């Protein structure tokens, strides 16, 4: 039946940037489909120029309130890369353990607060909490655990203070790590409850599919499901690209419909995030995480962006499993205070870490005093924008006959599956007094 559909989801608030969804279709023919990102340039790169190499990770931790640990870790790795600084095995392990806390936190929040309301048919988590309090409480307990975990290793829940080039300013005690391991053991029933709740409404997850290039880190030696080490891999090629060559992967360009830069590699667009990691490295997940993926029918090669949330659930289980092993390794070896001795030198280097939303690149250049003279940051959200547009272009004609409301909802759900970081830099209140 011929359909006329006009979707115009504009969210121009006073300062926060949001993506706009525009669809025009007349008589069943699509005339315009756009994912517009009118984001204000953020100037974070300019803000670190002129600062000491010791301060970069503190400044960039404020770029994002959800993945501040990842930004700090990426900056620290880039500084160390630029200056040829090596870190101890203990530092490396504690940092990875710290990073896992952020993966758990972000994934359970994304699935619990943003995706679950769609699947259960509620406009937000607040009414969902009234109807399904047990599930929401399980999400909140997992969130609390992840916060405590970040607190212990990063020095606070968000915007970490223990990371410095060359090491850490504080290491946890054996007792603290033992307690964390006990808590991780205790959280598995909550993870199971959340997974089962999502499974009970899994038929709501759209079955859309579009052949896509997926880009993530890959670690071959030893093989591991990596968030932190390794080189850049793609489902479109066999080999990997060294982190320092990330610009040959991102190929940033300016799109007319966005003030944020877009990226492309082997195709017109690529996707990053949990599904990209799963598609490149899924065979290396821990057994319980693989089991969870199978429960939902998630297999390597999946090109349904809505399944990103399921890959996130599998990763949430995985990071809990591997963190317990990491803690055992740290405890067996014994924790010791390590002095950080670093001298600045001139150099340029990159760092790359998997943020919960996908691969993140930082690059810095320093003069001989260690003052930053150049910076370049490429966030996962920008790497997904072109892919969201391509998904829109394929999805809209397929669902046009379902009508305007369904088109709007599915496109919004698709955006939520990517969880773009487009409104992160400001969070102020906006109020009207009523008494």
């Amino acid at each position, binding site marked *: 039946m011929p359909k006329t559909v006009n979707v115009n989801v504009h*969210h121009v608030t006073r300062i926060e940037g949001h993506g706009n969804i525009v669809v025009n279709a007349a008589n069943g023919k699509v005339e315009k489909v756009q994912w517009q990102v009118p984001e204000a340039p953020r100037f974070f790169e300019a803000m670190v120029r002129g600062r000491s190499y010791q301060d970069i990770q503190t400044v960039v931790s404020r770029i994002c309130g959800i993945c501040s640990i990842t930004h700090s870790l990426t900056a620290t790795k880039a500084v160390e890369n630029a200056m040829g600084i090596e870190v101890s095995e203990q530092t490396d392990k504690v940092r990875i353990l710290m990073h896992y806390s952020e993966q758990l936190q972000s994934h359970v929040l994304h699935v619990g607060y943003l995706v679950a309301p769609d699947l259960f048919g509620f406009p937000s988590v607040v009414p969902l909490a009234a109807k399904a309090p047990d599930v929401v409480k399980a999400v909140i307990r997992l969130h609390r655990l992840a916060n405590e975990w970040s607190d212990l290793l990063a020095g606070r*829940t968000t915007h970490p203070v223990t990371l410095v080039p060359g090491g850490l300013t504080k290491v946890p005690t054996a007792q603290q790590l033992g307690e964390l391991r006990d808590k991780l053991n205790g959280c598995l029933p909550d993870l199971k409850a959340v997974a089962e709740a999502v499974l009970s409404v899994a038929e709501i997850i759209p079955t859309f599919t579009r052949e896509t290039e997926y880009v993530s880190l890959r670690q071959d030696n030893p093989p591991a499901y990596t968030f932190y080490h390794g080189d850049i891999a793609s489902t479109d090629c066999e080999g990997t690209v060294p982190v320092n060559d990330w610009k040959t992967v991102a190929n940033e360009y300016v799109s007319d419909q966005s003030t944020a830069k877009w990226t492309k590699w082997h195709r017109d667009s690529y996707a990053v995030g949990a599904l990209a990691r799963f598609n490149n490295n899924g065979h290396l997940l821990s057994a319980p995480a693989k089991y969870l993926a199978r429960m939902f029918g998630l297999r390597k090669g999946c090109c349904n962006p809505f399944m990103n949330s399921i890959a996130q659930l599998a990763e949430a289980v995985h990071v809990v499993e591997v963190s317990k092993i990491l803690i055992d390794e740290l405890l067996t070896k014994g924790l010791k205070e390590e002095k950080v001795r670093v001298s600045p030198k001139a150099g340029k280097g990159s760092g790359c870490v998997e943020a919960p939303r996908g691969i993140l690149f930082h690059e810095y250049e320093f003069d001989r005093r260690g003052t930053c003279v150049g910076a370049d940051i490429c966030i996962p959200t920008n790497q997904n924008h072109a892919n969201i547009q391509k998904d829109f272009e394929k999805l809209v004609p397929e669902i046009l006959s379902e009508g305007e409301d369904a088109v709007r909802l599915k496109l919004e759900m698709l955006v939520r599956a990517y969880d773009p970081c487009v409104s992160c830099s400001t969070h102020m209140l906006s109020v009207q007094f009523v008494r």
Partner: protein
Amino acid sequence: MKNPVVVLGLGNPLMADEGIGVHLIERLTKLAAQFPGVDFVDVGTASLSVLHQIEGRRKAIFVDCAFMDEEPGAIRRFTPEDVRSTKVLARQSLHETDLLRILCLAKQLDQAPGEVVIFGIQPERLTPGTDLSAALSDRIDAYLSQILRELRA
């Protein structure tokens, strides 16, 4: 162990006046020894972590940048019941949040403190940069006095 009272500073110090809550919490933390029953927390932009920071407390005091139709630099003390949120959420990502909705969720889950007080400060400038506008930086001591009065009450 958590103290019965918590003061939380929210905002992004890379976005000028947006970071006023963080600037103030930094100053307040230096006075922490005078307030043994109070925790001071720099929440930054991790607004959802507020849920856990306020849980189990008797009182939570927030310091945040707020559009209130006031002159830039104005400070107002209010409770969540005194206001209604005029913030429009796109609900596209976890990255956008509204403190009032988070407090509403905390209440619904029975995790809200008995008393919640918000100090809102009207911004002048919300552009990238680490410096506060003069309208706010000139009044830092006045803001601190008002928050300290609340703590000593």
